[in-house]
């Protein structure tokens, strides 16, 4: 087990250095693919062995804290929730690296250069390693360390093209998420001073007032990280990043860290206050409505997807909020949505990447009739769209159903108060995505879209794998989630 975890953590780092320093682009590609491919295999084998009994091992303590009798600080925790995020991180990491071997090349009409490729691989692999660290963290402290590492990586990746807009976007992202991170740090200090522990479950040992305060601080951190109202504005701006980065940032890494933190807390603590749960759920609903409202003004496909991510992270938080309020089905739905949204959103981003790769454009008004030129991309896009909008039998439906079910199980005024806006949001989002899909892929081929075609093999492969995952994600996710003991 130790060896597996070491491979998961270190191989991407080694690969990052290898790919970063190599002068030859092909070598860089090879190293990068290999150093995420092996962890993917390892993570899959771990996923097979996962049981409801979590494996924890704390290896390293800090000498200056030993006097406080802290059992240990750094190590790993492999429980179903960790495995859930881990598989998503590794699978999407692998696919995004494979995809980027062609995307970050001269064939890309939007950015026809492969100059920054080693740099991209370097940061991307570090990003994957940090997310792995987040997923397997046994306590809040380690989570915080890796959490901030993802921030650094995302800053470098968002500013990848080094033009004015992307530098500004990267700066904005870092500023807002680090601001949230400060709340995380304060929460850690309060927690440690009062309980002498960084455990996820340590919140239960606080007095109710302090527990709510610490939870609120962690929630602010999660909101900033997961781009929720009122901190959501950095995410759409971060679309200046290469599409591969956007995809990974949205589907697997960074924003998922925020909801993962809340998921950890929701599962580990039994005594979170009702008002905390209500706050999570209400803010989630507000975020959903704000996000879906902003759909109407987006012309850039990627920005549209960014707002969609905001709403979908709100779905996850909505489920977690329902869980804290007492609905286990809702909690299940929220967790499942982490996986389902990851698959759906990943395929959508890669489709947009493929479109801009061949046409150099991302504008909804300019692109028309793509389905005649790029059938694979259009099918994949529709699959992704139906996934995130929750049309059966695709993945998103299952989690949406669980969320609905959770809200109804909760019952009473609160349940219905939360349910109605959620339901409306789901309908409006579906309508808008369907409209965009019709606009971009059907109708007469527009001049701008006439150059479109299906992307090269490496990119198509990622699309195909993800499209299949959009169907079978719940089949793989549900058994893992059902192992979680509440």
């Amino acid at each position, binding site marked *: 087990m130790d060896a597996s975890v070491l491979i998961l953590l270190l191989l991407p780092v080694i690969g990052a250095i290898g790919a970063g320093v190599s002068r030859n682009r092909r070598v860089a590609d090879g190293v990068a693919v290999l150093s995420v491919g092996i962890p993917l295999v390892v993570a899959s084998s771990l996923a097979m062995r996962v049981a409801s009994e979590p494996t924890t091992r704390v290896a390293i303590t800090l000498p200056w804290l030993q006097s406080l009798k802290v059992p240990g600080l750094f190590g790993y925790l492999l429980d179903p929730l960790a495995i859930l995020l881990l598989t998503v991180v590794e699978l999407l990491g692998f696919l995004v690296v494979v995809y980027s071997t062609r995307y970050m090349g001269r064939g890309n009409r939007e950015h026809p250069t492969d100059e920054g490729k080693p740099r991209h691989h370097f940061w991307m692999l570090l990003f994957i390693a940090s997310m792995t660290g987040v997923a397997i963290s046994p306590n809040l402290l380690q989570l915080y360390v890796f959490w901030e590492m993802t921030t650094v990586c995302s800053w470098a990746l968002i500013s990848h093209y080094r033009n004015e807009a992307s530098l500004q976007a990267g700066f904005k992202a870092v*500023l*807002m998420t680090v601001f949230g991170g400060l709340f995380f740090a304060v929460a850690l200090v309060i927690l440690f001073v009062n309980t002498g522990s960084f455990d996820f479950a340590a919140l239960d040992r606080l007095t109710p007032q302090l527990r709510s305060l610490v939870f609120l601080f962690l929630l602010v951190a999660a909101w900033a990280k997961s781009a929720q*109202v*009122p*901190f*959501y*504005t950095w995410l759409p701006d971060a679309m200046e990043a290469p599409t591969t980065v956007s995809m990974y940032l949205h589907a697997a890494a960074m924003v998922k860290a925020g909801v993962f933190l809340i998921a950890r807390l929701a599962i580990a603590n039994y005594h979170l206050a009702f008002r905390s749960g209500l706050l999570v759920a209400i803010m989630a609903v507000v975020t959903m409505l*704000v996000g879906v*409202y*902003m759909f*109407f*003004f987006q012309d850039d496909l990627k920005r549209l997807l960014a707002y969609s991510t905001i709403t979908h992270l709100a779905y996850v938080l909505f489920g977690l909020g329902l869980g804290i309020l007492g609905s286990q*089905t809702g909690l*299940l739905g929220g967790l499942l949505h982490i996986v389902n949204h990851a698959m759906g959103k990943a395929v959508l981003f890669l489709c947009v990447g493929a479109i801009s790769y061949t046409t150099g454009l991302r504008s909804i008004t300019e692109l028309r*009739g793509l*389905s005649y030129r790029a*059938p694979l991309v259009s099918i994949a896009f529709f699959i992704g769209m*139906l996934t995130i909008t929750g*049309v*059966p*039998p695709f993945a998103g*439906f299952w989690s949406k*159903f*669980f969320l*609905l*079910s959770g809200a*109804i*199980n909760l*019952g009473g005024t609160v349940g219905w108060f939360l349910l109605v806006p959620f*339901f409306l949001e*789901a*309908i409006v989002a*579906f*309508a808008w995505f*369907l*409209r965009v899909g*019709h606009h971009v892929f*059907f*109708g*007469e081929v527009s001049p701008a879209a006439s150059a479109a075609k299906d992307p090269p093999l490496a990119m198509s492969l990622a699309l195909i794998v993800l499209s299949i995952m959009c169907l079978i994600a719940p089949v793989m996710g*549900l*058994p893992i*989630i*059902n192992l979680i003991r509440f």
Partner: protein
Amino acid sequence: MGALTCYGWALAFLLVGALVTFFAGLRTRRLGGLALMFAIPGCGLALLAAVSVFLRGTVSTDPLFTVPGIGAVLLVRLDPLSAFFLAIISVVCFLAILYSYRYMDIPWFADLSLAGYYAPFLLFTCATMTVVGMVDMFFFFIAWEFMTLSSYALVIFDRKRKERLRAGFKYFLIMHIATGLMFLGALVIYSFGKSFTFDGLRVTLQAMMETHPATVHFALICFFLGFATKAGVLPFGDWLPDAYPAAPSPAAAAFSGTMSKLGVYGLVRVFYEILPASNYSRTYGLVIALFGTLSIFVGTMTAMMQEDSKRLLSFHVIGQVGYMLLGVGLGVYFLPKEPNLALVALAAGLFHLLNNAIYKSSLFLNAGSIFYKAGTRNLNEIGGLSRLMPVTAATAVVASLSIAGIPPFNGFSSKWLLYECSVFGGARMPIFMGLGIIAIFISAVTLASFLKFFGASFFGKFRIPQAQAAKGDVPASMQVPQLVLSGLCVFLGLAPLLPLRLLYTSLLDIRPQLGVAGFAELFSGSVSSIRLSFGDGVVATWNPAWIALALLGFCLLAWGIMRSGGASRRTVPSWYCGEPHSDHETHFPAHGFYQPFKQFFRVRIGKYEWEGVYLSFKYPSIRLREDNWLTRLVSVDRWFFYPVVRGFYRLLVWFSGSHVGIPHVYLTWAIVGVLAAIALVFSLH
């Protein structure tokens, strides 16, 4: 082979067929044969399964799969009612695919990959068949939504044309909302009883009726809305006149033959099987019947105004589904008090459904044949096609007479039963009498509308917009489905008791505890005659065979008179009182039919316009300006983050002004700092 094995293999064949045709479609356009290769065993086995259930009774599987976290179980059960629908689906879908084999060759579709047609079609067939086998609401809805998805793909098959895209969008969106509502309804009941199976839902509902009446109403309204939307009941079926014409004709035939019928199936399942007989039945029975009659009236009246053949038929889909709903509504209403009448009404509604599935599919195929030959759906541009395509004309006349309810064709038998039920129901609840009268009146309107459809396309002077049409009728593979369907129309018209027995017993089979009379007590008579009773004496009889014989006899008589008189047939040009007239002037196009009637009903108030009695208005397009108050409010950047950051930055700039490079200024700062610290320490102690 057991019925379930057949059913399973049928679904497998269709599913694999969909995948194979899809991938084959990447290479070739000749997919019809391939699709047929899978459709023949698929539909054949499904039909076999249905027949086996009819003969041997209900079959069901053990739970195949349970969704962890919620109590949904994948259970397959084929009872006679499912088998009835399964049989309809397999026949109609097979005939439609057979028809497509040549139909899809028309130049109109030349630039489209047929993989986008055959693969969804096979999926659609598979999904509709799956729907009728599910007895767990959760999986029922999954199959249901899958059916919507595949039918949406068929609607937008011709995806270069804007109006079709718009129709597809509207269709999918409305369906999504409807299904979402139904999910909500099911979930609400589930949250009380923790079961999604039909039986479990019934038990839960029974328990909830006393304690949570509002919740029961909410759930039932959701179900009603969902199924009524699918069935195309007005005003929820507004999508239908757009979506059906957008789909290729065989697909539209399959939609009208199977999909819209499944809406009625869902209503029967929910309001007959799941809802225990109670006051709720009475309320919702009345609601169903009222909406049904509304559809009959508005749908058919609007159909009469149409000049596009497929749009005309689409409005008739709406009108005809109203008849079924009238029957179902009557049945549900009388379930608690008059179970005999109720079951007859339900059986009548479902019998009409069967008849409608046959003749409506046939009519859509006829419209397709016209399109195949003439290249247009506009009834104004065609005429006299009976000379070119006699087989299509003959089948179209049979189907038209059936839908108009002319004896001895099948449409009449079911309509007659419906009228009987509404009259006898009217004796107990007068409103049904009124509904029945509307239904009878509209039957005449249906006839008028089909006179137009038929007369405009097949009679009169020969004209088509295409320069020339190939000689002869449509190819044999297109004739066969039309012939089979019109044959069925005649057969079921002459032998109405066969399907009625099947339907009645299958309805009894679902709710055996109702305590109603057996089939033989209510429907006496031989194969070709019905003697109807509602439990106390025969109240009406209908004997199609005698009517048919009489009609035949009169025809023979007329023919005999003609022969004996030695009259010869003359073909001469029309005589216009000696004045020369061009063809254009003397042509009587579809547009000319029922002009005064149209003028009378044309209503316009402000921007709302009635197409006849059908409210048709453009959905308002909302244009949101990006720079409104709400956008400004949610752009937290603009009013909070940017000002704060800018202010902070300015503060730092101002503060950096303290860096002046003069030592004694720094010294002053140090002293001020020390003093402040001392003050702080003292104030704290």
